């Protein structure tokens, strides 16, 4: 029996190792590609490139693009994508920060209202939001572009931030679940002591909700880094306003650009992926502690 168990376990270890290799291989390949020193995209065929260099990373840290960002004019003439990577990174950082802050406020307001307060329109609103969520998200992107153009925010970052933030309140579900676990007797005790509902909101509930606030901030922060569809449509061809995802996609979208930019694309992706991965793992911890915690157990 023990022998059987040991053989079974070894077999399972083997399967796990093989699967881990399959899962990690593309990512490891991408990282190695970013360090390759071979010209063109010859290195694409090998797992481990023949020569290593940091040139790809160095090429991305040029500040040429910032002139175009602050002057507001689109670049003309021949464009080198790697000049603009720093600008894209900066853009995405700004957009993510603002989006995460505003999104969190909106989500907290909505989830608190639906969880603790009882008002007439509560049930109809929840059903309406559910139905709204079933529409494909970028159906309205055409119209948003037109509306933003009418208002004068054509192809701008502020317009992009507005688009991300608009539907933020509809993603209240997880936060609401968290607020539901906080016992109502705290509310009632505070009300007997004479607190108004607004005071209960910011004095009592908010400090208790720290894990879920951090989770919401992190989730909202990670959104714009990976979003291609909406950003590419709203930003059109204003290259100084691109976010990282749009820029990287445009880098290797056409076959003739591959030779020049493949390694830099890999380097750019690694620069994006590393912080996001770390944030993701941190976020998982907060999510678990938020869901299993709460003010009252059981």
């Amino acid at each position, binding site marked *: 029996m023990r022998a059987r168990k040991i053989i079974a*376990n070894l077999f399972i270890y083997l*399967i*796990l190792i093989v699967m*881990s290799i399959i899962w*990690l291989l*593309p*990512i490891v*390949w*991408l990282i190695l590609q970013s360090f390759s020193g071979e010209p063109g995209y010859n290195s*694409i*065929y090998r*797992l481990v490139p023949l020569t290593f260099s940091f040139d790809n990373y160095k090429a991305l840290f040029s500040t040429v693009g910032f002139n175009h960002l602050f002057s507001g004019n689109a670049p003309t003439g021949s464009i080198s994508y790697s000049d603009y990577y720093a600008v894209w990174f900066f853009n995405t950082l700004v957009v993510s920060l603002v989006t995460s802050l505003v999104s969190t406020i*909106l989500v907290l*307001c*909505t989830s608190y*209202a639906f969880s603790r*307060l009882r*008002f007439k329109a*509560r049930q109809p609103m929840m059903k309406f939001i559910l*139905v*709204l969520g*079933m529409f*494909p998200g970028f*159906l*309205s992107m*055409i*119209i948003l572009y*037109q*509306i933003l153009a*009418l208002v004068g925010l054509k192809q701008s970052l502020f317009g992009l931030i*507005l*688009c991300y933030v*608009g539907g*933020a*309140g*509809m993603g209240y579900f997880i936060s609401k679940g968290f607020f539901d676990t906080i016992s109502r007797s705290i509310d009632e005790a505070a*009300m*007997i002591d*004479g607190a*108004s*509902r*607004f005071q209960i*909101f910011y004095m009592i509930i908010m400090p208790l909700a720290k894990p879920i606030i951090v989770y919401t901030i992190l989730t909202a922060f*990670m959104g714009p880094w*990976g979003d291609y569809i909406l950003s590419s*449509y709203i930003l059109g061809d204003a290259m100084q306003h691109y976010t990282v*995802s749009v820029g990287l*996609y445009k880098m*290797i*979208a056409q076959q003739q650009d591959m030779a020049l930019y*493949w390694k830099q694309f*890999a380097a750019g*992706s690694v620069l*994006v*992926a590393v912080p*996001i*991965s*770390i944030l*993701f*793992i941190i976020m998982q911890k907060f999510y678990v502690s938020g869901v299993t915690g709460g003010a009252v157990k059981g």
Partner: protein
Amino acid sequence: MKKKTKINEKELLLKEEGGHLNFANVSALANVDVQPVGKFKTFLLGLLNTLLKSLIWLGAFLLDILKAFANIFVSLYKGIVFLIKRFVSFFKKHIRHFYEVDRNGKTSYFIMGFSSIKSGQIVNGIFYMLVQVGFILFMVFFGWVNLWKLTGPGLIPFTPPGVDEETGLYTAGVEGDSSIKCLLYGLLTVILIFVFIYLYIRNLNTASHNDKIVHGPKYVDAYEDQINFIEKINENIYLISNKGDEKAKRIRFLSKRKRYKVLLENGYETLSARFINYLSLKKLVNAPHEVLDEAKFNLNKFHQIYDRYNVFNDVNKAINHLLFAYENSELVLDAIYARDELSKRNNLSSIDEKKRIKKKEAITRIVGALNVEGHIAETIFDLGLHNKKITKEAHQKKYDRLVLNSKAFNERYANKYYGQTSTFKKQTQALFNENFATTVLFLPVTFATILVIIPLAFTIFVAFTNFNGANSGLNLFKWVGFDNFITLFAGKGANEMMSRTIWTLLSWTLIWAFFATFLNYVLGMILALLINRKGIKLKKLWRTIFVVTIAVPQFVSLLAMSKILGDYGPLNEFLMTTFNLAKPIKFLSDGNIAKFTVIIVNCWVGVPYTMLITSGILMNIPEDLYESARIDGAGPFTQFIKITLPYMLFVTGPYLITQFIGNINNFNVIFFLTGSQPNKLYLYNANDTDLLITWLYKITTGSGNQYNVASTLGIFIFAISAFLSLIMYARIGSVQKEEDFQ
């Protein structure tokens, strides 16, 4: 046939101690001849059973789809009927109000805000008046123009400056309408009209409310009568209880008291019913919260007793229970004692603010701690049942207090709320308390309306126009009714390709969603099981490895995958050199192979997610289920089918549904992998592996920019998602109620 075997008891005990009770022992003990059925037979029977069950499930599911179709029409009809009824009752209510309301209110129907100003709510009144004037001005100058142009949308075409052919004169050209602008302004005007109607109705409601406040007392009479009636009954009860010696008195007390008790209880019941009526009549919902809580507290006392003891449907029993509880329940005795002490110290009959709050605290503490016992104690205390040596004055005082509470409530209510109308200051304060929901939801709702709902409504309207790249900008587009729908679904002739495309892509979307969800789920579960097994070390390491693959942003990993799997990418190089193939395997360019590739890559992306979720759930399955299964001799496979699988399906049912519907709209995987492949000739602007949603994107950004077709398609996708969600939730919802998995 019974086999009697002589079992040595000692042997049996030894066997028990050494190992588990096995089948032979038990059967011997029971003296029954049990023949174990062959393993193969059980397996076949089990298989047949599962097969039949799944067939029945499938049949029920298909029936559900048919029912859902039928339900759509039924619910549409019901919805329209309901709306019409609401409309009619709404009109009736306001016409009735017009007759009931006083002169101020009647003027309010024509001059908004009149009654508010007359009742002292100056800010509100001025606000309503400004709204009315502003709206009339807006409609006169801009509104009707916008609405008229909405019929176009946009009616004045653009003509460039140039020489007029007929007259030979130079014209400066006409700056035409932009159809998008006209549509947008028209939509906004319609919304403004609805907002104005809402404010008008609010104005009317305020008028009638103010009327009730100012002339409040004319509504109060019924309440007063009831209080008088109760007072009389209490008097009679007291008179009876004070005649004769102790025991006789007690018996008479109980018997007569029963009759009067009935009256009293009926009286209290009617009182509470009228109380509720009174409250709803006065829309107590908007009262300051401490008043509301006091009212609720009083009501609760009555209701607790009735709710709990009415189940006997016998008032005598209720009374007996009250007395029994009083005499035998220590909690009740304690509560009464505490209440007594409290009443002596805090002078409960005062309605002074601070003392009232202290009283509330103390009572809440007692009542909250004791629940029903507390309420019983309260009622006994208030009725004076506990005090046998009660004097007439004390008794009178008690009932006075009870009545006074009710009257004081009325007065307090009137003075605080009904003597005065709620001013602007009070309303602003209420925004942070009772109406906090309005304040807190203001920002999210505004953002969502401007940035999500209006564009969505716009898009739906665009589906009925011919808005595309050619008809935008300076050119006008027009309403075309249902033409787009007909072209998309049943196009003939030149448009046949579009309808063929949509049905092909629809079937592929459903197949893709099914396989993507199914494979991800099964593989994720297997992986989680493998990692979770006892004896596997470094569980966290394995999980972290898989989590890392989803931590990387999707567009990075998918773009990398698309290059790896390209026609001349590294994987093909590797395969060609190792296996000496003549041509590369077209993972992503060949339509049929691409379908498989896409599903497999989706597994690569999605299995870690399902693994995480199923891991968490697997850890929660109680171990003793597996223990007992192992004792009964079940192998690992049987354990999986009988214990793990049902539990997992039960818990992750809703998750599976959401995943399926999400996979129908899974844009990223398909777009980044095959989005750059050329479109097929037999499909309209689409690829073999396109989902409906990627096709939508291609139509929008491709040649011609056909926004109208895209909008129609979007509505179709929404209809499918909503339809499937409803069916699935109904189905899984009914299963969730059964506790089969236990």
